């Protein structure tokens, strides 16, 4: 048995070290955000750090998945949803402190890789023609089941009367960023993704895009909520996200802002 003790001690020491290490990071608020805001949020987090606010830890993914993980006990402190419903439902069920705040309104865009047979046409008229003459083999959107931008894409496709035709060609991203990745890599001829992603520098150099009119889908009112275990650092970042510098960054990334109309 003598030998069994040693690994046990090492293990306890290692777990302790891991615990201490995560305690050291505990002051940095842990933020879960819908992947459509990733570039805006990275910039805001940089600006926040430069303004002396400290570091922020960001996790990006689909709003639906985050909402589920938060219900299962994920240790996030602030949640930036891509829609209102997930955030409000968390507040209603006691996982969030109050209803939070609207922070941005999202738009969707048709994204096509360079060299795609598809034209970047926001009215989706060219997509309709392309479906008829077989120019589209794969088309990317986020999974409407749990990604708000996927739902907006579905609504726009339904509104254009293309949903039934395009369904067999759809490749579904786990979140909107993955859908953009499918289209930008040229593995799909196009996709409907968040406008904020289409504007990202790393995407812009290899894709074309066109904004889809706002009336083609239900508004993507993006709401954020402070979660039950939010610390003071998370509260400060929550306030900063509503400040003029942060709003300017959101605007630059293609979001409309609450209380500004259009």
């Amino acid at each position, binding site marked *: 048995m003598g*030998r*069994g003790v040693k*690994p046990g001690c*090492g*293990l306890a020491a*290692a*777990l302790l070290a*891991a615990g201490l290490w*995560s305690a050291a*990071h505990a002051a940095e608020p*842990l933020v879960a955000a819908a*992947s459509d805001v*990733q570039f805006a949020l990275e910039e805001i987090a940089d600006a926040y750090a430069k303004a002396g606010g400290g570091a922020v*830890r*960001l*996790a*990006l*993914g689909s709003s639906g998945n985050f909402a589920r*993980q938060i*219900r*299962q*006990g*994920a*240790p*996030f402190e602030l949640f930036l949803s891509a829609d209102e419903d997930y955030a409000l439902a968390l507040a209603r069920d006691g996982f969030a402190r109050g209803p939070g705040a609207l922070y941005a309104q999202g738009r969707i865009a048709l994204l096509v890789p360079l060299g795609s047979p598809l034209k970047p046409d926001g009215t989706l008229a060219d997509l309709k023609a392309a479906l008829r003459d077989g120019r589209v083999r794969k088309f990317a959107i986020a999974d409407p089941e749990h990604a708000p931008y996927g739902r907006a894409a579905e609504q726009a496709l339904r509104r254009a009367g293309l949903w039934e035709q395009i369904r067999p060609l759809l490749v579904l991203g786990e*979140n909107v*960023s*993955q859908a*953009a*990745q499918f289209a*930008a890599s040229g593995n799909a001829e196009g996709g409907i993704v968040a406008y904020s992603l289409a504007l*990202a520098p*790393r*995407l812009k150099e290899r894709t074309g895009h066109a904004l889809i009119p706002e009336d083609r889908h239900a508004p993507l009112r993006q709401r954020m909520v402070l979660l039950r275990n939010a610390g003071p650092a998370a509260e400060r970042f929550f306030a900063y996200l509503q400040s003029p510098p942060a709003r300017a960054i959101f605007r630059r990334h293609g979001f409309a802002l609450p209380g500004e109309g259009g």
Partner: protein
Amino acid sequence: MDWTALRLSIELGALTVLFLLPVGILAGRALAYRDFPGKGLVEALIALPLVLPPTVLGFYLLVALGAASPLGQAWQAAVGRPLVFSFEGLVLASVLFNLPFAIQPMQRGFEAIPAELRAAAACCGMTPWRAFARVELPLAWPGVLTAMVLSFAHTMGEFGIVLMVGGSVPGETRTAAIAIYDRVQAFDDAAAGRMSAALLAVSLAAIALSYAFSRRIGRRLG
């Protein structure tokens, strides 16, 4: 390069190996030398993670460790934070899905020791503990090392289970494999490429090592 993620992967791998070392030696040795009713079933259960889709295992672990489970609640009560989406939960999941990678090579290592040798050790008056420490373990060592290397490499590479049980919490459960996925989604192919190359190198080194150890076992048998 996301050094935090890489360090997290290495810590996870090292802790997993540390946990599995005693478990694997005890279980591997028992399976090599003992016959008991239901042995086939036990061996099948241990091998199960080899064939199960990671999402199946991930789903069961999420249910078993989640906030609604007795284990999850006991952990929450004792430690004050949830087990899922935490590094500790990831270590537990990692130990479970690595059982076959640890136990099987160790079992082969113990099986490779000729029965006469063990009989001779007993004849010489060695206590079972002494025979284990002085005869069996040194001879089975290549199998034990192979198991450690494989478990470590497999932990570094696991994706599905880590994503389901761990989420992708930076500095807590975002391992190198998950960070690659995140970087691809951020259209940051350069960073994804660098991290992929690092994992490729680690995996190649691990496999080469384990093959070298296996050859040593083979030679001894021949």
